């Protein structure tokens, strides 16, 4: 499990995250929500091993500052908010990076098959030969997710559960693909892995999360099950906006909720 205790993160002299406290257990989707600039991404970066921190961040009992890059790579994969690619690689090559650099421990599966399977899972079957840079933003994001999935394909390696860290994984996707990606995350946790995701969509957060961490001004304001956390007073104070949970809009305007989507096919 991932255990964050009294963690403070500074970038330069500025304190971005103050005294963060939460944990993410395998088998659950832990979602981080909060307004822009509240420190969500910074916290996720620190957990990914990108930033120095004070306090303690433990991954399966080991302080992550003491873990080597390849040790971390075996236990978790990270989907960044945005990715740039320097040279014209094909989709297949980008996804295969997930296999070549991490020691992915996906024994028994041919890497080429895994690339195809991962692309199929993110609904990009048949895209292998395309150039990454020619794809739309949403498609690129899903290629990156396929790469991330390849790195930690088996949610449990040996007896060690593995994690997906997803920073706004659905920010540039249409609603169908948002549901597909969140279903992937849910399936990953059902098979024993863990997921930490930064999300902006409160409906999807409430639909898919097992635990929600609410951040504001770099501090953790609440941590708990979605039905406990997603309520009027907390949301109004954190997002500084007159939100009302479960309130049906006045007659006239159409509204579409992901919760009401019928299972397709």
């Amino acid at each position, binding site marked *: 499990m991932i255990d964050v205790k009294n963690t403070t993160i500074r970038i330069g002299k500025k304190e971005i995250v103050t005294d963060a406290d939460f944990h993410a257990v395998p088998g659950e989707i832990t979602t981080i929500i909060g307004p822009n600039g509240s420190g969500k991404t910074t916290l996720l*970066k620190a957990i*990914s*091993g*990108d930033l120095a921190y004070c306090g303690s961040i433990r991954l399966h009992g080991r302080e992550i500052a003491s873990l*080597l*890059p*390849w040790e*971390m*790579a*075996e236990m978790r*994969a*990270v989907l*960044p908010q945005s*990715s*740039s*690619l*320097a*040279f*014209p*690689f*094909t989709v297949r*090559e*980008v996804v295969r*990076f*997930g296999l*070549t*650099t*991490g*020691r992915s421990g996906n024994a028994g599966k041919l890497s080429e098959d895994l690339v195809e399977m991962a692309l199929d899972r993110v609904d990009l079957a048949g895209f292998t030969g395309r150039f990454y840079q020619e794809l739309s933003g949403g498609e690129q994001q899903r290629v990156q997710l396929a790469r991330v999935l390849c*790195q930690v394909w088996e949610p449990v390696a040996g007896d060690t559960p593995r994690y997906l860290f997803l920073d706004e994984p659905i920010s540039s996707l249409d609603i169908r693909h948002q549901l597909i990606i969140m279903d992937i995350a849910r399936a990953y946790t059902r098979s024993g892995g863990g997921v930490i995701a930064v999300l902006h969509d409160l409906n999807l957060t409430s639909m898919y999360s097992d635990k929600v961490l609410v951040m504001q001004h770099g501090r953790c304001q609440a941590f708990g099950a979605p039905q406990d956390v997603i309520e009027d007073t907390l949301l109004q104070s954190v997002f500084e906006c007159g939100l009302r949970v479960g309130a049906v809009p006045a007659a006239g305007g159409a509204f579409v909720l992901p919760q009401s989507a019928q299972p397709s096919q």
Partner: protein
Amino acid sequence: MLVLLLAAAAVLSLATGASDASVAAVVRAWVTELLGGHADLSARNRIIINDIRLPRMVLGVLVGASLAVSGAVMQGLFRNPLADPGIVGVSAGASLGAVSVIVLGGTVLSPVTAFAGIYALPFAAFLGGLVSTFLLYRVSTRQGRTSVATMLLAGIALGALAMALTGILIYLADDQQLRDLTFWNMGSLAGATWSKVLAAGPIIVVVLASTSLLASGLNAMTLGEATARHMGLAVQRFKTTAIVVVAAATGAAVAVSGGIGFVGIVVPHLLRLLIGPDHRYLLPASALLGASLLLSADAVARTIVAPAELPIGIITAVVGAPFFLWILLRRRGVLDML
């Protein structure tokens, strides 16, 4: 196919020159002597082939390969196809190191030259290249992102500084040293000897062999430093290794041939169009094509105004500079976004 190309270029390199010494005759002579017979080869032609053209050919292969590979590694490290040791001042830094040894080797640096012998020159060039590459990376990369504009500007500034310091040294040089220095300004394989091959060869061979270890790391780096680390790459150590490799390759090449430009930018770019950007194939292919290209350019350099010869740097610049402009034109839109 690239191997065949290199073989053809090698034969061309042996066969062309101001003298009419024939390769076929020499190869026949080698074979006869190998079989224990007595070859009928004029002493003059034997010297021309064995001691002038052959070391020149070997040096051309080594230098061409190391220029192209250091370009490819540097472009991978900076995640930018415009990075090239010649353009961003690394070659200038290496030249400064080499010129320091030539000018100060008899005085201030005499303990160094006495200790290092023929390796003093390549080693000093390596140090010069190392310092430049390291400074360049420190200045232009912040939080894992390299700014192209900063990189090019910093490279220009570093190059100008190194050239100014080189200028001061040249000002201090005596007549004999000036003669030695002249070829740095142009870049040339003329004056290739077996001892130059011995001085630079081992460094270049080690560097070329070690780049195979960098390939998958360079691939990971194309997604950015953070993602490379997430995928298990020890980024800091990798960058240090890559910088040392670039500096060693550039330093060794500059030490024996001066500043030959544009091979490092033209060759990898051409190959990315032909075989794709995967560094596992790009690096060895760059070595082969770089060697072939330099041998061909050298063959042109020594025949086009025979019996005199042009500095090879002029040939590579005449071909390379328009090519570089063409890359800039094609990527203009992309550059503006970075």
